[in-house]
């Protein structure tokens, strides 16, 4: 397939009768029909286009890995807005800001529109034919061992195609890289519960104790958890759920907690064991081994090590014991240390002794078709790819959905190592930092133009296979769907096997129809089934249900004290924000202008520092401070923030791009660059919170661009945002 010669218009006509149509024609975008360009007036618009009337089509959000189902509002052939698909068990009609900004990914003015070939420092526009030829030529004679394919989390039929393609190249080097992933937790969960990612029932818990899990912001499946949270707050029988958040830097979830406990960075595990100990003292029966293990963690010691007062510790144990079931969550803040796995084990142990396993933590159903189940990313993949590149093992590198040049710590030298590979192909939407290092940049369709299937890692109920379908005609003639590109590439090697598939759409359709009986009655007509599927935008299957195998940790080794360094006295917490995550969305202006919920800063990075520490260092808000680690420095404006441990500073991730277009380039700084290379002892994941820094004033000062006014967060006695103690309020009577 060279050109995208699948006739969308005819296809749409078919769909139009099916009741749910994908309407794709529009002003500004001429339709390609039988090779002729026809200007179609709305006076004689196609049946599925009603001028002035919006039509809604279901698809899947591709902004993060949570796999929310979306409904695109389409008018006159243009997608206007993404709304939530109410049928999805993941997001139930709701959306986050990040998801809604998907249209700005699609309409982004800085998208790559033509295949680009590196010519010295410049990119030269070439045709797709030439690009395919070039790939074939460069792959020719290269052993499969020397071909690496680096992707972000990938699932569904794209994953199948990719693995088949790698097979056809005799390569096993598909690396799935996510700069921010709960990889440590997966390993810990596997040990504690027997599954990597169980289902969490926040809504069934009476108390949620979260160790840095920002489940309302950026953790795993935030829209889903937010809905659970709403139910949890309403509570059953008027018993409102209580949220206690333990972390060193306040996250959005921490800001919503009933009690936010600041801990010394890295001591989350100690606190967890301390709570177990306190629970035992409060009368909860602990298994003997556990009791013995937590014995040394008496409240004084724990309080001293973590900084949490003994009073709070006792109260916490009391409420956990009293209100059951509870749920203990663990997030990146607890994972990001050399002893992150130990922290995780300790926290999971707390869940186990509280008897939450099986109540608020359940096994997720496993995907009935393992080949489409998501390949989960982690940061260990980066390390592997980088090592291979450094050693010259990688001759040809493909990248898709990742931006390692941006997200790799500077110390890894990733960009330089990448240059050692003979031929680098970036499948990209924008010229991001990685694409700029590539030899060949292949422009992809946006998520709103492409076909696909997705299966999210976190499955709240059964298994949801989400369909991604085009919501409108392609904006740019020379972009291609990733699936189509892979299919074309694979046909070069396995022409016979894939001859039946004209394009990726045909492939997906065939694949799903083949498994029709899994989803529907056997008797259903193929067309009807297919149209229903597209109309729904998703299909739920029961999956195989599992039971959790709870295993108590036998040994948890927590360091006596977390390392400090006289030269670098502070700990850097690279914070993950709900809208910018690892930086791949930084070019979506809605997100840039969406104030950070806690600091309300827009369009820029900042260094969060506790006022006490700031006073010590003579820093005031707006001072440009230099944050120096062993591996480099970044300079950003200081923001005085009480929600951070005084021994830590925090810089949000996601900004600081040198590329990626007008909305991303030049705004803020990139803390990924200065991270120390410290790894989790067990999983080899990059320990994100192990970077030690020092900060100094540069003497420059700016006015921080933020929504917060001169009063800061102070209401000055006015009744504006009010709170009430839970014993003062009668929730059961509420509508």
């Amino acid at each position, binding site marked *: 397939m060279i050109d995208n010669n699948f006739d969308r218009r005819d296809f749409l006509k078919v769909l139009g009768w099916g009741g749910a149509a994908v309407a794709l024609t529009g002003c500004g975008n001429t339709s390609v029909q039988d090779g002729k360009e026809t200007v179609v007036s709305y006076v004689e618009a196609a049946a599925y286009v009603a001028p002035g009337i919006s039509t809604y089509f279901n698809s899947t959000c591709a902004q993060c890995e949570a796999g929310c189902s979306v409904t695109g509002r389409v008018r006159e052939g243009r997608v206007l807005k993404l709304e939530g698909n109410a049928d999805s068990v993941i997001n139930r009609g709701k959306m986050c800001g990040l998801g809604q900004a998907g249209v700005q990914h699609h309409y982004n003015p800085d998208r790559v529109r033509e295949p680009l070939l590196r010519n010295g420092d410049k990119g030269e526009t070439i045709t797709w034919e030439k690009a395919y030829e070039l790939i074939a030529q460069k792959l020719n004679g290269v052993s499969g061992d020397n071909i690496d394919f680096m992707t972000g989390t990938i699932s569904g039929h794209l994953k199948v195609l990719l693995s088949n393609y790698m097979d056809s190249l005799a390569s096993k080097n598909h690396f799935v890289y996510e700069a921010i992933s709960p990889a440590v937790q997966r390993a810990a969960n596997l040990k504690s519960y027997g599954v990597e990612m169980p289902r969490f029932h926040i809504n069934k818990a009476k108390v949620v104790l979260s160790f840095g899990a920002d489940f309302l912001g950026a953790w795993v499946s935030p829209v889903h958890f937010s809905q659970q949270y709403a139910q949890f707050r309403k509570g059953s029988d008027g018993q409102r759920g209580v949220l206690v958040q333990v972390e060193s830097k306040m996250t959005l979830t921490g800001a919503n907690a009933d009690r936010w406990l600041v801990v010394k960075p890295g001591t989350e595990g100690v606190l967890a064991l301390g709570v177990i100990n306190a629970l035992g003292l409060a009368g909860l029966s602990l298994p003997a081994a556990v009791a013995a293990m937590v014995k040394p963690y008496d409240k004084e010691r724990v309080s001293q090590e973590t900084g949490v007062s003994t009073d709070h510790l006792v109260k916490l144990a009391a409420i956990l014991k009293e209100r059951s079931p509870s749920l203990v969550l663990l997030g990146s803040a607890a994972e990001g240390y050399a002893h992150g796995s130990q922290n995780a084990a300790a926290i999971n142990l707390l869940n186990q002794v509280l008897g939450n396993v099986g109540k608020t933590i359940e096994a997720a159903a496993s995907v009935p078709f393992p080949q489409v189940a998501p390949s989960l990313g982690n940061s260990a993949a980066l390390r592997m790819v980088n090592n291979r590149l450094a050693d010259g093992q990688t001759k040809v590198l493909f990248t898709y959905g990742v931006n390692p040049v941006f997200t790799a710590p500077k110390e890894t030298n990733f960009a330089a190592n990448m240059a050692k590979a003979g031929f680098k192909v970036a499948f990209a939407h924008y010229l991001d930092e990685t694409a700029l290092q590539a030899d060949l940049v292949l422009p992809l369709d946006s998520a709103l133009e492409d076909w696909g299937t997705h299966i999210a890692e976190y499955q709240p109920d059964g298994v949801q296979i989400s369909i991604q379908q085009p919501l409108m005609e392609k904006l740019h003639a020379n972009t291609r769907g990733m699936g189509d590109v892979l299919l074309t590439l694979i046909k070069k090697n396995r022409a016979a096997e894939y001859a039946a598939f004209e394009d990726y759409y045909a492939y997906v359709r065939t694949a799903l129809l083949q498994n029709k009986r899994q989803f529907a009655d056997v008797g259903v007509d193929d067309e009807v089934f297919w149209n229903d599927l597209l109309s729904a935008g998703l299909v739920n299957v029961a999956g195989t249900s599992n039971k959790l195998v709870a295993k108590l940790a036998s040994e948890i080794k927590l360091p006596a004290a977390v390392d400090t360094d006289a030269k670098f006295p502070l700990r850097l917490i690279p914070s993950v924000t709900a809208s910018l995550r690892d930086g791949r969305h930084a070019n979506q202006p809605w997100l840039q202008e969406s104030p950070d919920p806690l600091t309300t800063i827009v369009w820029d990075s900042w260094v969060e520092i506790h006022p006490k520490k700031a006073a010590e260092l003579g820093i005031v808000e707006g001072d440009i401070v230099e944050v120096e680690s062993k591996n480099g420095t970044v300079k950003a404006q200081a923001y005085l923030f009480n929600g951070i441990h005084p021994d830590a500073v925090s810089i949000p991730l996601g900004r600081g791009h040198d590329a990626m277009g007008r909305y991303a380039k030049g705004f803020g700084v990139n803390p990924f660059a200065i991270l120390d290379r410290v790894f989790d002892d067990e999983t080899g994941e990059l320990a994100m919170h192990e970077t030690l820094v020092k900060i100094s004033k540069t003497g420059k000062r700016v006015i921080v661009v933020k929504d917060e006014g001169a009063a800061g967060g102070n209401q000055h006695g*006015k009744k*504006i945002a009010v709170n009430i103690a839970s014993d003062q309020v009668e929730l059961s009577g509420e509508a």
Partner: protein
Amino acid sequence: MKDINEDIAWAKINKDVLKSLESPRKLYWVILAVAIAMISVAVGCEVYQYNMGMGVSNLNNPHVWGLYIATFIFWIGMSHSGTLLSAILHLMHADWRKPIYRFAEAMTTFSLMTAGLFVMVHLGRLWQFYYSLPYPNDRGLWPNFQSPLLWDAMAIFTYLSSSILFLFVGMIPDLAICRDNMHDGWRKKLYTWLSLGWEGTDRQWRNFRITYLTIACFLIPLAVSVHSIVASDFAMSQQPGWHVTSFPPYFVAGALYSGCAAIITLFIILRYTFKFEEYMTLSILKKTVRLTFAIAMIWTYLNAIEFASVWYGHDQPSKDVLIQKATGPYAPFWWGMIFCGSIVPLMLAFKRFQTNIPVLLVTSLLLNLGMWLERWMIVAPTFSHGYYPWTWDHNQWPSWVQWGIVFGSFGWFTLLFMVFCKVFPSVSMYEVKEMVYHRSRATKKLEASGMQAKGAH
């Protein structure tokens, strides 16, 4: 010390005043050029703002009003002394007003015209300004008569047109003098046309007297209403620091105050520029200065009353605004206002300064600076520190566009005033004659009675 030399020949009065209409000196052109240069700055800024949008003025949310409105009030205030004082003093038969009321009334007119410009400059959609006028139209659309801004527009229109008429009517006999003394030319035609064929007949004078009196009677409540309506723009709103009952009288006092200060400034300038020493005498200046001092004290009192009522009112938001004025980012300006408005005028209480021209010039300029600061301190701090803490903005600072337009407005005023003084007699000739006439008669009477008394003795 006499207000005026009673023996002055009437022909000399004519001659002296008409001299001010003669070919201007070089300095006059210099002043005009400077004024035009200043206007060009304002025009440039306005063109830029018109094209780019109001954002270039650095106004923002919550600072939706800024120097434009503050300076608008300043000019409106400035307008007050002219007409209001002229009318009040006329009713009170204070004849020392006669040599100085003409330019004061001109000042009224021109500062109103300047103020009007600020309303325009301030509008986000200047090109649609006529939406705020009550004109009949097909769509049956009317402005919102509930809005104090509309009252403002109405009051200013009434005041401006009445002031112009008052100025004009009062000038008719003088225009006839000009007509009678001018050589042929456009000016003669102009005066002939404007003097409406005035010949000073008894019928004309009789009706003139009544008319002038009537309009003066109207002008006093009108002038009071104008500035109290400007005060209503603020007092009728709900904002802390604005919603103050004492605002209307406070504004009126402030207006009189700044007007008087401006009269002193212009008095001194005209006295020297046109050599009007014989008419604009130090004695009259002294009276004006004393009046100014009295008004300054009234203003100070009303200011204090406002603070006190806020303070004792226990309305926390209003109190916060007051505290903010005194201690926040606007503190230097606010204290500057107190200094210029309440401390500096104390100087005027000393006799030796009441006729000291250099001191008075500096003082009057300081008073006006103080009054301008007052207006700014009414407008800006409430925006920076309103009801809603989240939107408090203590960092906003007017951009050069705002400053440029404010700066240029002084040029505009100067231009209008200078042109007026060259085209129209800035001292009322016929009234100076009246003053001389009545005074000398009174003196004679006094002398006569004195003689009698002496004789009786």
